[in-house]
């Protein structure tokens, strides 16, 4: 039965809580009514009584019954989310927004650039891309984190390095004795990516400052504005373009995004803040 109330959350069971890093947890969630999403779309997660916050699922969209969100503890609601235990009840609304236009990527070379917590939506994207890998000419992944401690999905992403059909490089801003990979900013490992920049697609997701510098670098390398896909972190609340909070120029991140092509937003003010 389609619900006519867009503000009502669907009752959802917390199946499992996985501690990813000291500040990040992943929740496995089973909504009473199945929520089917396209990769890159987001949901609003309600902690009853505490409020809700927007997250892009980090799980594969083809897995319909259960979805996963990966949450960094930063604010009031995420603090409560981190206190959740297996068996607790939460609410879910959505999905909202546009998601990644996978069909537009077909036949092309794709560079995915992630930073920190941006790995969460990108894991879902990568799962989707892996499923239809043969439809892309080339797939590259460049990921960076502050330090090895905060490297999200570390084991899983290191497993990706064994994939023959993925060109992957990882880095941390500051290494430690456990880290065997590169050290330096993600913008450094983007450089020299083996692909045709003029024709390729680049997808960027990460903290605002990383997004800003990665975009700058990709443009310098020769990527076209219309081939750059950015996930904009704004204060999405209602999810349906009514409450006003997530406006970017003439767009709302919640209904017209959260994924934008750079040419759609480059003339808008305040995009990186």
């Amino acid at each position, binding site marked *: *039965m389609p*619900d*006519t*109330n*867009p*503000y*009502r*959350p*669907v*009752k959802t069971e917390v199946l499992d809580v996985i501690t990813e890093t000291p500040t990040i947890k992943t929740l496995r969630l089973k909504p*009473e009514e199945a929520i089917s999403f396209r990769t890159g779309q987001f949901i609003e997660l*309600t902690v*009853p*009584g*505490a*409020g*809700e*916050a927007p997250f892009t699922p980090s799980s594969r969209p083809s897995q319909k019954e259960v979805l996963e969100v990966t949450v*960094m503890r*930063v*604010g*009031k*609601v*995420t603090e409560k989310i981190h206190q959740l235990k297996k068996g607790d009840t939460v*609410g879910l609304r959505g999905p909202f927004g546009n998601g990644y236009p996978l069909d537009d990527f077909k036949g092309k070379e794709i560079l995915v650039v992630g930073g920190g917590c941006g790995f969460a939506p990108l894991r879902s994207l990568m799962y989707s891309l892996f499923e239809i890998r043969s439809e892309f000419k080339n797939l590259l992944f460049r990921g960076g984190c502050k330090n090895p401690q905060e490297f999200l999905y570390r084991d899983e992403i290191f497993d990706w390095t064994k994939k023959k059909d993925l060109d992957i490089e990882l880095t941390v801003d500051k290494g430690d004795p456990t880290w065997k990979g590169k050290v330096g900013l993600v913008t450094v490992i983007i450089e020299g990516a083996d692909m045709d920049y003029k024709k390729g697609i680049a997808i960027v997701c990460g*903290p*605002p400052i990383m997004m800003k510098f990665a975009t700058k670098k990709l443009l310098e390398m020769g990527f076209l504005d219309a081939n750059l896909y950015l996930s904009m*972190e*704004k*204060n999405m*609340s*209602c999810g*349906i*373009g*009514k*409450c*006003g*909070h*997530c*406006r970017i*120029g*003439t767009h709302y991140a919640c*209904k017209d995004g959260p994924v934008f092509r750079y040419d759609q937003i480059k003339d808008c*003010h*305040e*995009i990186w*803040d």
Partner: protein
Amino acid sequence: MAYISDGSFRRLLDILQDGYEVYLPVKKGEQRFYRRYDGSFDDVVIGEVRAFEPLKAFFTRAREVVAQDFKPGVPHAQDRPLAIIGVKACDLKGFKVQDHVFADPDLQDPLYIKNRKENLIISADCTCAIDTCFCLALGITPFPAQDYDINLSTVRGGFLVEAASEKGRALLAKHKTLFEEAKREQEGDRDRLRAKVKARVEENIKREKVPSQDLFEGIIERSFESPMWDQEAKACVECGACTLICPTCHCFLLYDQKDEARMARLRAWDSCMFKDYARVAGGANPRPKLWMRLRNRFDKKFNFFPQVAGVYACTGCGRCISACPAKIDIRKVLKRLVENA
């Protein structure tokens, strides 16, 4: 055109009470407020000028429950639809913006849609103007031209009546014994009063040198980096009154309340002037400074809405001018913006 006498009009209000909760404007001191009709008529002012509260208050409440527990369906605050009497032309223009937001066919807001469908709007001509009125600059006349069910024009002994919707026409047809055919001289009286009020608003515009909306194109972009925003925002105390009282402003905050038994999701009017309005939990805030938020308020009204909805989100009602404790005056800001061209 139809005419209704004061006596028959009161009978109409009594009849309307069977199907509606009737609200009408009353005067307290120098201000007009909506009051629920209870049969008494002593303080009622159908004409005059817009009420203190914006019309939007009857369509999205200042605070209302939008969901309860995980129950499907839409909670509604009111059992019966509202008949809102004496609505002025400036407030009706607010619908152009509110409808664009809440009645977007792709993403409808069920609470608003229900109110919009069921509520009855009986508007009225302004019979005077106050100093803050500048509707003509926004292309609105101080007498309704559209977006009402029935409009009333005050004449001696009663009102001239016009219907502009199916709902309005059906109502007139159903109660046709209450109405008479209007006389030609009554129409002449109405036109003279309309001209007089219009002239009064024109005087305001001339005195304050308020630019016409014909000059608004590109004013925000041209002055985006201007030092004027910081200057205009100097005295702002971030109270949010300008946005809460505005008939076009629509932003709201969703929040949850929970006690032992139940959980409720509420929405309350919000203001883009508040510091945390656009802040994200990660800490980033696109508009940390008050002057940036003032600029954003104007950007939304005079840049965003004309692009997405083909309308400037200002009605010239002047409420934000009266409400501002810092005396920030939208007419002066518009004048500066146009002069910066």
